[in-house]
């Protein structure tokens, strides 16, 4: 966080620290299945390059407890011959890792140019109004978290919504965003229309 000498100084808007600290969280140990899965993943890389599996290991931690904690990172560090600091270094860099608890459905709206030209900002507004939360927040019921994401690489089907890092909903019109929330509540994962490349015949 810094300023160009000619920039107008405005502490209320711009002069805030962005430092974040990793939460310790509850004690963490992999379930035997996930531990076995990690061992299997490690065979894909040279034996002295266990570090390559750190992203995969972090995904497993996130799958098990929903988000990443200091204890989770400390658990995987020795499995990959790393220090906890090295794991934290990686975990805090990539945007698909959550570092605080999130809702059951994390709605990740693509906000970059092609989607924005097709109304992505309105989609975010509609979801925000429907859920009563801002971007980066989780609703009180713990069911939804709303996030903005950078280009998801499906610009021909804009605006695109990714859910929980895995599910996909394309061509989401702002006026249909509220309805989608109701659909998710009623039908769960089945509410998402998926990637047209898999659906379309």
């Amino acid at each position: 966080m810094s300023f160009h000498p000619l920039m107008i100084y405005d502490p209320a808007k711009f002069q805030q620290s962005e430092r974040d600290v990793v939460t310790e969280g509850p004690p963490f140990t992999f379930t035997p299945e996930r531990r076995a899965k990690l061992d299997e993943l490690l065979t894909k890389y040279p034996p002295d390059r266990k570090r390559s599996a750190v992203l995969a290991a972090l995904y497993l931690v996130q799958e098990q407890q929903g988000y990443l904690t200091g204890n989770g990172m400390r658990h995987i560090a020795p499995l990959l011959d790393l220090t906890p600091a090295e794991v934290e270094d990686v975990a805090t860099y990539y945007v698909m890792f959550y570092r605080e608890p999130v809702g059951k459905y994390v709605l990740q709206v693509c906000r970059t140019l092609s989607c924005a030209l097709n109304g992505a900002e309105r989609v975010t507004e509609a979801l925000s109004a429907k859920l009563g939360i801002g971007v980066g927040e989780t609703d009180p019921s713990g069911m939804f978290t709303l996030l903005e994401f950078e280009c998801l690489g499906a610009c021909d089907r804009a605006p695109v919504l990714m859910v929980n890092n895995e599910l996909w909903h394309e061509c989401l019109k702002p006026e249909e965003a509220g309805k989608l929330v109701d659909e998710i509540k009623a039908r769960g994962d089945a509410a998402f229309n998926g990637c047209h490349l898999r659906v379309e015949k």
Partner: protein
Amino acid sequence: MEPILTKYIKEPNSYTLDFSVKHGAYEGLKKALTMPPNDVIELVKASGLRGRGGAGFPTGMKWQFVLKDTPLPKYIACNADESEPGTFKDHVLMERNPHSLFEGCLIGCWAIGAKVAYIYIRGEFYHVQQVMEAELARAYAAGYVGRNILGTGFDCDIVIHRGAGAYEAGEETALIESLEGKRAQPRIKPPFPAVEGLYNCPTAVNNVETLCNLPPIVLNGAEWFTSLGPAKNGGPKLFCLSGHVKKPGVYEAPMTITLRELIYERAGGIRDNRKLKAVIPGGSSVPILLDHQLDIPASFDDVAKAGSMLGSAGIIVMDETTCMVWAARNLLYFYKHESCGKCTPCREGGDWLWKILTRIEAGEGVMRDIDLLVSIGGNIAGKTLCAFGDAAATPALTTVKHFREEFEAHVREGRCTVPADWRAATMPMAQAH
């Protein structure tokens, strides 16, 4: 021209091994394995195949630079971290035609003498990865990948590695860092990856579309490939049309096709028959072109001559309702958010540009802000380890260059002078971050 890379993508089972093999998959590999590796490299050099990831560097040359006399293992790292805004061609190829990518990886490995190809796929493409993992398992079972491929004694593994959301991982040395389990931050070059790449071993980093072009080159020869398209820009090319066009999508054409044909014929023209305002021809990192500049072939060289770059061929079309300050601000948020933070000009400068653009867009800008954008942009471009710095400065520099009067109007009138009903009703949500 009949599509080559995307010929079967509309078929319901185009991604399956059975369908692919029935339609000629792994034939190129069979032929390549009968050729000495060096002949494969010479063939690719003769074809003039240029990297489809953005830089347009000749693939054959890249392979030739891969160290030969070394006891170290060699690697192919396939760049499937398709994150350039406006680009979605690799997405289509991997989802609908994964065997062509596997075949390309194997041909590349044979040519440079690698035993493993890592496909670094962006984390957001989980649905694509699932398709690929299943098909890769089938290819292993059928003997196209793994030990003693097709009975020739050639061993080669393919590993799909999932990223976790980082635009910078698409830069070749950052991709290698990420594959090694570190932050996706670029390395100082030289040494180039061809000499010291993944695990400090010689590595060729190739884009998905580049590798998918290899099987047809091996099968049909270099002359056939160069004949498709202008000199030094041969072969089929995928163009991604998005933004305010009627039929956005991936279109395959030789690079003789003009940008205007792509926009008005393939993609059906501008939505609601509005007027075209600006086109970003190669993913968000390149300078914009105006309406009168569109009658040029969409080739690497011709687009460069017009003052922009073909880049990843992600063509974003903006109509007359688009505020260029808003567009620049949208992209600068992307770049400030995705900057890896290694080089100061990009890390700080990108943030400054976004803040200034936000002020102007919100109607709180002053006239000197416009020159400040140019000054800061000029101090980022060319002053960073990787091309990200140039990319981050470009949206601000290019919009000020072509639409300065629009910036001035924002400052003069203290509001956005080109509002549009598809934009956020309030200042965009990103303001809060």
